[in-house]
């Protein structure tokens, strides 16, 4: 998984990078909140971010607030990493938009499992988002064939939105995923095909007599 880290302290940053890479993650490194915010706005931004709270330029809390307002389908999962211990601080961090919170000095196994939880949630979000897209597409197709269609009483052509009269076959082909196989129904066979066959037979009979 691609993970963004924002940490101004070089030692803590190096430790984070070492852990995450050891656990098989790809790491995008930033040195402060402003750099992190710039990366997180991009379309291909990492879906999980580990942010230090206290950083120059822009703190982790402000990054959380801004990320929550991004007009994106999937908002990055944020773990706030800080030396602040109090309950009030935890509440403040979560209210700003952090999904999880870890106090320094943290135990590496705790970080590992919290990153795992984050990765699971991101995966679920991604699957859910894909499913919603599929459903929206399906709904769009249903909507295309809904409503009152103006159809000619004689030739059965349908008038489309551009005021163009199309035969039923091409209209449906354009407005749905349906494709056609061609055949003859029993009624048309009796009314159209059979008379033509009989007429052909009748035409052929005198030739045989000769």
């Amino acid at each position, binding site marked *: 998984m691609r993970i963004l880290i924002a940490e101004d302290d070089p*030692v803590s940053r*190096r430790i984070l990078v*070492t*852990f995450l890479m050891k656990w098989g993650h790809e790491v995008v490194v930033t040195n402060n909140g402003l750099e992190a915010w710039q990366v997180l706005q991009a379309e291909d931004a990492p879906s999980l971010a580990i942010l230090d709270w206290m950083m120059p330029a822009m703190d982790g809390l402000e990054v959380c607030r801004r990320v929550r307002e991004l007009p994106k389908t999937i908002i990055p999962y944020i773990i706030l990493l800080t030396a602040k211990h109090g309950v009030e601080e935890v509440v403040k961090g979560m209210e700003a938009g952090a999904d999880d919170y870890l106090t*320094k*000095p943290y135990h590496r196994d705790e970080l590992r499992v919290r990153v795992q939880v984050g990765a699971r949630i991101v995966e679920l979000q991604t699957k859910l988002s894909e499913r919603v897209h599929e459903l929206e597409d399906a709904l769009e197709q249903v909507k295309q064939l809904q409503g009152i269609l103006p159809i000619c009483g004689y030739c059965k052509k349908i008038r489309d939105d551009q005021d163009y009269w199309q035969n039923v076959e091409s209209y449906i082909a354009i407005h749905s995923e349906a494709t056609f196989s061609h055949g003859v129904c029993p009624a048309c066979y009796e009314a159209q095909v059979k008379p033509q066959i009989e007429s052909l037979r009748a035409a052929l009979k005198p030739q045989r007599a000769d």
Partner: protein
Amino acid sequence: MCHSEIEITTDRKSTLPVCTSIADPLCAIVDMAMLLSFEEVQVEGEPDVIVELIDIFLEEALHQMSAMQQAIINTDALALKHATHSLKGSSASLGAYHMTAFCEDLEQIAGNNQFHSAGAVLTRLQQEFEQVRQALLAERQRRCQ
């Protein structure tokens, strides 16, 4: 035996753990078990991660202490808070807990905007750092042999 700074750690109302016995790793200048635990994440063929961390820490600590000194001269609480906060985190990560405690003291001083004792605490931090530096350099030399 624990060095004199322990008294400060135990006297102060710190949220950090305090030294309870000679065998306690918190009494050490650097908790070597903590430092050496980074061997777990060493990737084969890559540079020694502990040596790398020691180098980064020694350089960064000097930089942050210089920033603290300047902040105290300027009575700049925000700058002092930033510098102490950063060094507090990195010293704790490498097991230099006494340094962490002094940083926490300075962070509180900055938070309360009461600079009268800041210079003395910074001096203690610098003295502590010198001992930490010796311990880390010894470990570095051992690893690079």
